């Protein structure tokens, strides 16, 4: 057997985490309303499937774009040969405009500062390659997207140092935590090259507040070598766009545009979440540093967006009427859907972190834990995957510091599926409650307070002991 490279054989791509295990389990037994109604419902996938109808109707009305045509004339040959890594300027212009629009046109974007990449995964990694050397570190607020271990670390050799957070302040970034992380990195002899945040946050579904942003900017202003990467791929999912503040707005508002800070702030964006097109692989780096743009552009050769996609999307994004309508409708639908999930969970006694963006909720299942440990979280998670049959992501896979939080996605399914998922969760909660009540009533009995509890037990199936121990054969 030929020895493969260390990179190929090492484990730091993170694919073994429970985040991906849940997916594997899902793929073995996926829910289908008719074919497999008992299957696992995928709630670990942050996909936006709520607005396909809008996209599809646009495509139906604009056949040229999808058919290699411009004003009825074929552009096939042009596209077939196009491979300039700077990308189609028409597309980049449209993309830059869309980004502005997405941020309420409070800031404008220069398409020359945009580097196209094959999705945000590639954009993030490229930025790491540009900003850090192997062994350098980036600070990331926890909880963070499980895929970052792969995207940021695996091939680049960059280390991630977590910025600790806690549910007590809604997992907000604090100055103390940031400084602690920085000290921690130094202690580990790591050269901190930057901070990477997701705004809106994956997995929290919240936008970064002005306060938080101020803390971050103060920090990078003070520490001259530190970059700030803001992953804003969920910017289009903010229910109320006024609540979303891009780092570019801070630069503008805090009059940092003429300082050295300008060049150290970078944005990662994508159309995967905003338009629900993860398969098209369109991501981008936006940076004010010409050198970064230049290097990133060269590196983008390894993962370009196909000309066909660029062409199609340039038409789409240039249709201002469409984009305006789309953003509004998309926000409305996501908001509705999020409310359904939050209310549904509330009804069965489960709370969520208050959120205003994203395709997921950060769900507080701490009351269902048998103990305040990550083992208990894994036990609960396994029960949810294997018995309740929902694939959700445990907080531990997002490097959350507190056991009991789960990321639950809500935009990759239809309403009925969500309802079913809630029903299944209800059974779990009832089951847990009843077993707790039994324990409680037992202790009540011991305490002499005899109160008849009319238990409304359900979930008998789970309580059946599967392995009635039959006598071993001889």
């Amino acid at each position, binding site marked *: 057997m030929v020895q493969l490279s260390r990179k190929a054989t090492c484990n730091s791509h993170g694919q073994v985490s429970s985040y991906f295990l849940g997916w594997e*389990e899902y793929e*073995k*037994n996926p829910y289908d309303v008719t074919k*497999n*109604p*008992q*299957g696992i419902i995928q709630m670990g996938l942050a996909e936006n499937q709520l607005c396909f109808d809008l996209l599809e109707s646009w495509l139906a009305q604009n056949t040229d774009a999808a058919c290699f045509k411009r004003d009825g004339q074929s552009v096939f040959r042009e596209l077939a040969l196009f491979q300039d890594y700077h990308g189609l300027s028409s597309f980049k212009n449209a993309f830059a405009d869309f980004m502005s629009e997405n941020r309420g046109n409070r800031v404008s974007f220069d398409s020359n500062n945009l580097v196209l990449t094959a999705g945000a995964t590639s954009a993030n990694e490229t930025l790491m390659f540009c900003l850090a050397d192997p062994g350098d570190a980036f600070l990331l607020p926890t909880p963070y997207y499980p895929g970052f271990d792969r995207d940021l670390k695996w091939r680049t050799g960059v280390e991630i140092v977590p910025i600790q957070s806690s549910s007590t302040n809604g997992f907000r970034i604090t100055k103390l935590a940031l400084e602690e992380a920085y000290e921690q990195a130094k202690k580990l002899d790591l050269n901190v090259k930057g901070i990477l945040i997701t705004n809106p946050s994956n997995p929290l579904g919240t936008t970064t507040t002005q306060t938080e942003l101020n803390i971050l900017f103060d920090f990078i202003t003070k520490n001259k070598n530190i970059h700030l990467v803001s992953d804003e791929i969920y910017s289009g999912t903010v229910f109320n766009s006024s609540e979303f503040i891009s780092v570019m707005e801070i630069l503008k508002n805090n009059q940092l545009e003429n300082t050295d800070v300008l060049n150290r702030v970078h944005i990662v964006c994508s159309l995967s979440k905003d338009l629900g097109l993860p398969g098209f692989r369109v991501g981008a780096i936006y940076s004010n540093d010409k050198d970064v743009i230049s290097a990133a552009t060269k590196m983008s050769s390894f993962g370009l967006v196909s000309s066909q996609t660029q062409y199609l999307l340039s038409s789409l994004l240039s249709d201002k009427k469409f984009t305006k309508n789309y953003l509004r409708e998309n926000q409305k639908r996501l908001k509705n859907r999020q409310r359904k999930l939050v209310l549904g969970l509330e009804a069965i006694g489960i709370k969520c972190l208050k959120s205003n963006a994203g395709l997921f909720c950060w769900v507080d299942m701490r009351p269902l834990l048998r103990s305040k440990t990550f083992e208990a979280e894994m036990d609960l998670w*396994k029960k949810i995957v*294997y018995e309740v049959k929902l694939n959700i992501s445990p907080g531990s896979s997002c490097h959350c510091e507190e056991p009991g939080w789960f990321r639950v996605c809500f935009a990759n399914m239809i309403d009925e599926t969500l309802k079913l998922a809630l029903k299944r969760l209800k*059974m779990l909660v009832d089951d847990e409650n009843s077993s707790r009540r039994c324990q409680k*009533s037992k202790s009540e*009995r011991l305490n002499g307070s*005899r109160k*008849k509890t*009319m*238990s*409304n*037990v*359900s*979930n*008998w*199936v789970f*309580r*059946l002991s*599967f*392995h*009635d121990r039959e*006598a*071993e*054969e*001889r």
Partner: protein
Amino acid sequence: MRSLKLAEGCKGTQVYALNPSAPTPPPPPGNSSTGGGGGGGSGGGTGGVGDKLLQHLSDHLRVNSVRSKSSRTYPPPTQPNAVVSPEFLLPCGLPVTDLLEPQIDPCLKFVDLVEKMAQVYRRIENCSQFEKSGAYLEQCAIFRGISDPKLFRRSLRSSRQHAVDVHAKVVLASWLRFERREDELIGTTSMDCCGRNLECPKATLVSGYDPESVYDPCVCSGASRSEMMNEDECSTSQEVDYDMSFCIGDEEVRCVRYKIASLSRPFKAMLYGGFREMKRATINFTQNGISVEGMRAAEIFSRTNRLDNFPPNVVLELLKLANRFCCDELKSACDSHLAHLVNSLDEAMLLIEYGLEEAAYLLVAACLQVFLRELPSSMHNPNVIKIFCSAEGRERLASLGHASFTLYFFLSQIAMEDDMKSNTTVMLLERLVECAVDSWEKQLAYHQLGVVMLERKEYKDAQRWFNAAVEAGHLYSLVGVARTKFKRDHRYSAYKIINSLISDHKATGWMHQERSLYCSGKEKLLDLDTATEFDPTLTFPYKFRAVALVEENQFGAAIAELNKILGFKASPDCLEMRAWISIGMEDYEGALKDIRALLTLEPNFMMFNWKIHGDHMVELLRPLAQQWSQADCWMQLYDRWSSVDDIGSLAVVHHMLANDPGKSLLRFRQSLLLLRLNCQKAAMRSLRLARNHSKSEHERLVYEGWILYDTGHREEALAKAEESISIQRSFEAFFLKAYALADSTLDPDSSNYVIQLLQEALKCPSDGLRKGQALNNLGSVYVDCEKLDLAADCYTNALTIKHTRAHQGLARVYHLKNQRKAAYDEMTKLIEKAQNNASAYEKRSEYCDREMAQSDLCLATQLDPLRTYPYRYRAAVLMDDHKESEAIDELSRAISFKPDLQLLHLRAAFYDSMGEGASAIKDCEAALCIDPGHADTLELYHKAREPNDQK
């Protein structure tokens, strides 16, 4: 069709088979009216004689067959080119529906068994300690009705445990011993003690309530009565101040006056009471029927209180003296002394007369004990019969407190097993009736007498007894009333009785089965189907439908019908029927297989309506089936064992035993197969035979160990295994030790020890079948200590030596590793390979989604309705869907024919959650009747009762 030239067959075994000089089966006991079919001829081995014999046999049988086919002829065996026809093998023709009739169960049977079990549980819990033994005996009677030997034995043990008086202790201990059939163990005697107070023949003779010590080791096992020897020898005569003497004939016996006076009040009165004897130094005692030796002994006893050194006849004399002069102490000393001398049947026979004459309670108890421990053989001793069977005998025993319901319950049970129709049986049941006081006792006694009278075709009496049983409250006896009316040609009356039974009560399988006898056409078939639906374990409906199909010439369908029940219940009568039909369709191989299996279950089975011994049929069929050498047999056994074909395996083992009857290894295999088929009794018999035939000490110890293990003596079983290992390290000894140790939940240390033992076992020589099992068990210990990879290795190794069941363990390992798909696939493999795969479907259901699980469990129930998990699962699903009453129905359906702990517990929990406290409590009580220590049920029971207690 397999055709065979008869001439060829006749040259071989077939002539032998018909040769009257060959050992022919004995006529069935008590069946003298039909005579001994095969035994009619005399000498000679020629075809002519065989022919005549055959003719004789067939003529004889035809008379007894309702549907005689007058035109049937038999080809003379000498005629060449003759073809073996089914008629030759079916002297009674094919089975006919008209002759089919279900037996009436000679046990208590209830319309609402759950209520009954709950009742008896309450009785046991609430009665005073002195009534407990009797309450447990009632429980025995109930468990006998649901034919669960393990539960029966447990109640019997409890009954013995709580017994107060010597009589009850003697009877119950003997019964326990009988249940183990130790009489069949060569080399043991009836008075051998198994080492615990529970069954110890000496411990039984100690009166008093002592439930705590019954499981302790008895005196026989520990140091013997050494304390007696330690005492000083009794003081010599020189040192005694004799102040008087008794004169008998010419001899004088010198005594101490006040010592003699202290023997009894009459002596005291005589010596100090102002009679003339008072003043005399010498009293003439010649006329009192006591010898000089007797008087000397009495004198010594008066000083020492001991009888050790006297010969029995002297002690007997003392007993008489004691009775005459009211010497209580002397009497009980003599009684006890003599009681301990009784060790053999002869001694008992002699001494019981004295005992009864002199009203010596312990002596009679001891004699009784010998009789009872010599059962069943002592049942054929006319003197014993006389004491037990006659009304005077019972009265004599009763006068001493030695006639009890328990005694006659035990005796009549044995008599009925031995021969239902014998006069002995009837007489013992009459005695049982005389002893019956409680209503359950009356119900049982009357009903059994009814059943026996019905068997004897004394319908009028039978009807009377059945009626009495019904009046005593035993509704099931109405079946007997109906049947006897039917026999006396009051068919409509019979129909009416059962009809109203069905409409007045919650209908059961047996009610519909019974009614089917009294109606016809569609109605009959409907009743039979309903009977099966209510109780799929009743054999008669399957048999009837099968035979009805045979009458329509649909042999294949008939076999398929019987396969349904034989798939989960190895019922001898259904095996017989399948063999019978197989012969009819000329599938001799299949017929032979079934008959062999049948004879393993019941070695004396009489086929074709009790007309031909099964062994005889084997002889007839053997030449028609494929011939196997012993090596072929091993191959066959390996194959069938691997394909989990237990009945097939039994047949092969039976075949091999015919070639090698002394092979205890084969007997042991037989017991393993029988246990899998849930035929406890037959399995134990095979184990005993294995033990009796074992060639070496270490082998014998292993089989003895298994016997002890199966009768609840785990510690003793372990000791046997250790002893065996100390003689010779063998696979089976290590396996037994590991198995007995692993039967409870293991802590890590003992797990490791069990693993070590199994590894030792695997190092010893054995064959693939056994090693596969050991690997399998090793795997499951590994699973328990979460060493999944090691477990997987074991199972994989087991599979490579074709231990098919290891798929199940491997599936579990996959499951525990969260590889459900692989687990599912593994179970699919088992399902495909196994003949009996109901349990495999059940286990597979755990590894798939709910819908597929439902369909697997549905199939499992269809294949084996006695498995309870599928019902529980379906009920739980219904419960979760808030279909409470349907969920209850699902469980009740199964509980009605299988009163199972888990089912009852779950239903109780359902009721509890529905707020139906009373029903929950009842189900808990019934469940606790089955297992009084079941923790979950106990918790639920207390919880459910709590609010009631408060009110």
